[in-house]
């Protein structure tokens, strides 16, 4: 029974990590209605920035982490300025296609700048797990879970209670209308990308702490996708619940069903949930229902 509870807790924490990465999707979507297919690549970029400042420049973690977050924000800003700002007012589809191109471009840039070697990622969170009796909780996931909840509360408040947040929501509704109301569309979208890149970098630190850094890390972008769609692409608070639900189901499947069937159902089950929720409730659990008058 102890192990069962332990598996639930670990699953919930992994789900919260997915939720943090999914937050990057949602922040960008809420500000621009653009679904960023390159979210996993932003995680890699963030990971490489942390690796570079820590392992290459030899900075202490206290210095390298804030510096990495600033640099990640700068990358997000540059992406928006170079690739997306000219598309303001164009169809959302064009912007989405740009993110598909970004996915390929960012991989190429990483290859060009850092090469393809597998690298040891710095140990940011203690490797020693937390022991609660017979239960064992990985420290990186535990701290990551707390960060996710704090980030979700903070961002929910920002988007729902502050003028800046509400302006970003207006931008997502319609670029032209928002601009005619005096809202800086460029500024809002740029801020969303900065925020998305910073969240991805925090996700990379939690995900990769003490492990290895390769291209494969971008797969977490896909793992976070079911959480974002399950929660609804506009709901930051909903991501926490969706992440926990998906993480727990995945953990129980991995630990109890996979050994019986001799396969990796655990890797597939989040996508099954995603498809089911899209069939039943296309806007996700907490997504906005829009009524369009024609």
């Amino acid at each position, binding site marked *: 029974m102890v192990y069962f509870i332990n598996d639930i807790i670990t699953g919930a924490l992994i789900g919260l990590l997915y939720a943090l990465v999914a937050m990057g999707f949602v922040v960008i979507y809420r500000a621009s209605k653009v679904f960023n297919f390159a979210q996993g690549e932003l995680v890699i970029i963030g990971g490489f920035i942390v690796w570079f400042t820590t392992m290459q420049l030899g900075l202490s973690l206290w210095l390298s982490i804030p510096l990495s977050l600033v640099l990640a924000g700068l990358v997000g800003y540059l992406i928006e300025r170079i690739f997306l700002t000219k598309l303001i007012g164009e169809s959302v589809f064009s912007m989405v296609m740009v993110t598909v191109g970004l996915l390929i471009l960012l991989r190429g840039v990483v290859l060009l700048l850092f090469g393809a070697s597998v*690298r*040891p990622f710095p140990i940011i969170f203690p490797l020693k797990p937390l022991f609660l009796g017979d239960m*064992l909780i990985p420290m990186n996931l535990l701290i990551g879970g707390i960060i996710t909840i704090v980030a979700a509360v903070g961002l929910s408040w920002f988007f729902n209670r502050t003028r800046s947040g509400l302006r970003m929501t207006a931008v997502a509704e319609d670029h032209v209308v928002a601009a005619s109301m005096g809202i800086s569309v460029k500024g809002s979208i740029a801020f969303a990308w900065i925020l998305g890149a910073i969240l991805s970098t925090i996700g990379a630190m939690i995900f990769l702490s003490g492990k*290895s850094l390769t291209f494969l890390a971008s797969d*977490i972008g896909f*793992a976070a996708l079911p959480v974002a769609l399950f929660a609804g692409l506009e709901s930051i608070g909903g991501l926490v619940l969706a992440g926990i639900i998906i993480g727990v189901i995945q953990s129980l499947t991995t630990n109890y069903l*996979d050994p019986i069937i001799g*396969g990796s159902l*655990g890797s597939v089950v989040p996508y099954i949930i995603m498809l089911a929720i899209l069939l039943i409730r296309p806007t996700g659990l907490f997504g906005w229902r829009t009524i369009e008058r024609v």
Partner: protein
Amino acid sequence: MTYLSKSGLGGLLAAGTLALATALPMKAQAETTYNLALLSDFSGPYADIMPILASSREVVFDWWNATSGKELGVKLNYKNYETRYDAAQVASLWPGIKSELAPIAVVGLGGPDVAALSERLPEDKIPMFMATAAYGFAWQPDSWIFNPRPTYAHEAAGFLAWMREQRGGDEPIKFAVLSSEASPAYVDMAKGLEVYTEEHPEAADLVEVIYTDVQPTDLTAQMRRVARSGAEAVIIQTNTSIVVAAKRGLQANGADIPIMMSSHNGLPASGKALGGLAQLEGDFEAYGMVIAADEDTEARQFYQTLVSDYGLKAPWNVVTAMGISQALYTVAVIEHAIEENGAEGLTGELVREALFAKPITSEETHGFLPSLTFTPEAPFPLKGLKVNVGTVKDGKITIAATGVDVPDLSKW
């Protein structure tokens, strides 16, 4: 007159000797050229090791051209093709490679090459020589794709048999396998070991096959299960990221269970990804090829020759050994084909026939590979299979065992 005749005869002989002397090098210079297509991955999952692997196999072709090839009047040209380790990319490139190069052999890299070309090569009558271990799904008769090493499952089975012998006792050795469904080749490794334990329950007990992502989020819970099951070894023949995650999972659980890796994700690569070889103290790598350890072996000496005389820049490690061994057995087969058929008119079909005609001795591959006897029954030698075992001792890679017998495995 007699004097004149004698001097005339002498002159004729001298002229003949001169003509022969000039004609011989002329013949050597008028060499026959054949092409080899090298499939490479400079931008995909194996991009990190590709520059080393590519230079290691290329330098062997240069060495062969300068030595045996020169004597035989044959030059092997080669060209790399970027496949991104993607079967679709290989399949789309292949018609162009064939028309551009008309190769007598392909030097392959991994599973996607096998998946893309296994049906085409028999039609095109061009053999492909791999560096890796073989795959169970490709274990078919009359293959045109060949591996110098048996399947990954064979290699792991050889290691497990050796480990059991080292441990002593009659109990089967308990082990777990970490794999991934990301690639058919990864699944194949696990399936082969399942067959091994079914056929040899007295020797090995597979406690669990854990399928995970190629970059796992966390394996602490899975490793706890493995530790609780009493596993004595964890077999990971997939990639370094899984080795790193498994090691961290074992460390988190305080479990000291040795991990066995293969050549492509072996001790140097996984050690580097973990931040140092010391992290893998007591862990193993096992495969049917020389272990690139510090010991002075025949293979090491040949590597030194390639470095000093042919400008090889690659370090002495398992990837270099893989590239050199792959190229060495490829040129050995081509050399057999030339000896059998002459330098002119060599085709892929004749090269393949030469592979079956006579064994490739360990001497021919400078100790990089055991003696290989190919038959049409399988894409890899079925008899006399051996593996070598390397380990980390005091932070250095050392040879733990050589020439370990591989148990028989049925086809799966």
